[in-house]
């Protein structure tokens, strides 16, 4: 009993510094953002600062901007994560199965992930520029809603499919070869083995990969900032909070958007965790 208590104390002592640091750099700013979101406060009018209660939230939730940006964020998240999952799964299977040149394949697949998001966003913007970009043609890709979405999703997919593939590959290598052998002996075809053996076995890896990417994709900012500046209906929720906070200096409104974004992300995470628990 005594020993358990000593060990527990030691545990707290060792985790303590990290815990303090995490509190200082995450919990404190989050609480401060919540406090600011309840104020009517603009940096360019410091004299007019006042408590606003839930006024900022009311203003945001009744404005068209929030709902428009929420729908564009959801569209971008669902399409890019969906495509990434299919491609990433195919790549993971290839990386897992291929015998010759395995190292080379894994390295090549990972290259886009090593490129900075800002750099890849610029690269795709230049590629799709009318008349000078290598995609060519006269069409102004970033000037129309649907085509701008296409370019943004393409950039995201190109950049983060490797991450998806890597996460899934980590799942695939944990499936013992004997299970496949046994299924084969029992007469299961390749398709059946994929659906009945592989996918159920790596369900947790799939969940983790989808969760990480969805949370990431939902907060998309850099690609949109570089490619369209939020024009033609591509403004996302992160961009809205940037617009209020950094551009318009509306600290209260911007903080409220950040808090709402935080709530959305927490809800997505909770949804995934619940789905995961329910299945396993």
């Amino acid at each position, binding site marked *: 009993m005594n020993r358990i208590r000593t060990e527990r104390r030691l545990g707290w002592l060792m985790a303590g510094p990290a815990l303090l640091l995490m509190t200082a750099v995450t919990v404190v700013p989050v609480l401060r953002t919540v406090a600011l979101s309840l104020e009517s406060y603009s940096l360019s009018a410091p004299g007019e600062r006042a408590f606003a209660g839930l006024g900022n939230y009311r203003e945001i939730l009744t404005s068209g901007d929030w709902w428009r940006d929420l729908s564009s964020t959801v569209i971008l998240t669902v399409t890019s994560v969906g495509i990434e999952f299919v491609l990433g799964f195919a790549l993971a299977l290839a990386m897992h199965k291929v015998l010759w040149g395995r190292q080379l394949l894994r390295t090549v697949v990972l290259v886009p992930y090593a490129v900075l998001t800002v750099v890849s966003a610029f690269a795709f913007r230049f590629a799709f520029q009318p008349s000078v970009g290598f995609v060519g043609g006269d069409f102004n890709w970033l*000037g129309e809603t649907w085509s701008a979405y296409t370019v943004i999703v393409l950039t995201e997919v190109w950049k983060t499919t490797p991450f998806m593939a890597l996460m899934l590959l980590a799942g695939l290598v944990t499936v013992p070869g004997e299970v496949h052998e046994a299924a084969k002996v029992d007469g299961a075809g390749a398709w059946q083995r994929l659906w009945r053996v592989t996918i159920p076995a790596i369900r947790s890896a799939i969940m983790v990969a989808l969760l990480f990417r969805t949370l990431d994709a939902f907060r998309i900012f850099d690609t949109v900032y570089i490619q369209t*500046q939020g*024009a033609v209906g591509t403004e996302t929720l992160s961009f809205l909070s940037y617009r209020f906070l*950094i551009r*318009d200096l509306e600290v209260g409104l911007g903080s409220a958007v950040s808090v709402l974004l935080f709530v959305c992300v927490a809800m997505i995470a909770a949804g995934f965790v619940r789905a995961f628990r329910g299945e396993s």
Partner: protein
Amino acid sequence: MRNLLRLAAAALTALPLTACAAAGSDGPVALTWWQGPNAETPTREAVAACTRDGKYTIKVETLPEGSDKQREQLVRRLSAKDRAVNLITMDVVWTAEFAEAGWILPLPDATARTVTDGTLDGALKSATWKGELYAAPLLSGSQLLWYRKSRAAQAGIDPAKGELTWEQLLAAAGRLPEGERGVATPGNRYEGYTVFVNALVASAGGQVVDAEGRPGLDGDAGRAAATVIGSLATGPAALKGLSTLDEETMRAAFEQGEASFMTNWGYVYAAAAERAAKEPAFKKVFDDYGWARYPRVAADRPSAPPLGGSNLAIGAGTPEDQRESAYAAIACLTSAQSQKGFMMGAGIPAARASVYDDAEVRAAFPFADVMRDSIAEAEPRPMVRKYNALSTAIQTAFHPPASVTPDTAAKAHTAVAEAVGQ
């Protein structure tokens, strides 16, 4: 262990001490000048000329390209009362916001007199807020209509008279062969697009917001402006990339020949002259450059060209004992001599009238007279504290250009009212 702690304590106490020592030391006052990246050489020369007597030193901090990004960086420092933001090169539209927030200091009378003397009216207006001068105009400029002389003749118009309307211009451009009929105007969703909309509204005799900050887009002037944008964007003169055009891409389209007309600032001439000197093949294009007063919206009303430029202000975080030097520095940096340096070196028109009479300047800027008159009659952008929110509202309502119909004006009116809180 104890030694280590003592060392850490010593380091912690010593740090602020050394910082104090640096600030309080004798010798010249150290000023920092924050400005954009476009005029490095003239900036260096102006700083050298003004610091020659050794009373103060000026360190130049270069901000990123583009007024939006420069403002983003500056306001964060200013709202934190940064002591090292002393001299600021300000876009003409920041005055109201910066003055109202108390981020910049009003100029004392003596400095104001030096600054005002001989400076063009439009430029001074852009540096004044609620009757007080908050900045010293350094550079000015208005947009002109740039055109290829041969193509204008081919299309059967003579823009040089300065009475051309947008309607005539678009019709004439449409008569040119495919691939040459572009009329380049701002079209990207950025501040420059607000400048365009504002100039059209003002040219039609209206105001985006009036002196009391009330929006005024929902009227004949707003509808006339929207009609111009709509007919440009859906007609033959629309460039393929219109909805992403900014100053630099307009210039590229005009130099390349896809556009035969463009509305742009004076720097495009210096840029073309430089290119012509390097590329003999471009010389012929450069010799074909024509310039004229900004096009009219209504045939019977002179146009109100967009006014640009930059003013020098003093950050409110500047410590008391450095302010005298800062006032002296902006008076010196905005002298006629210094402005001539910027005009010759960076191609940006001066804010002082006398510079336009200089023989060297007239040789390098054959359009000096048109430019000076254009600045005199230019319409400043709306002076409101929430200029940025207003600008975003206008961009959102009027973008993309091809979606603009006369009804866009009423929609923009509502959005502007919401943005400026009226």
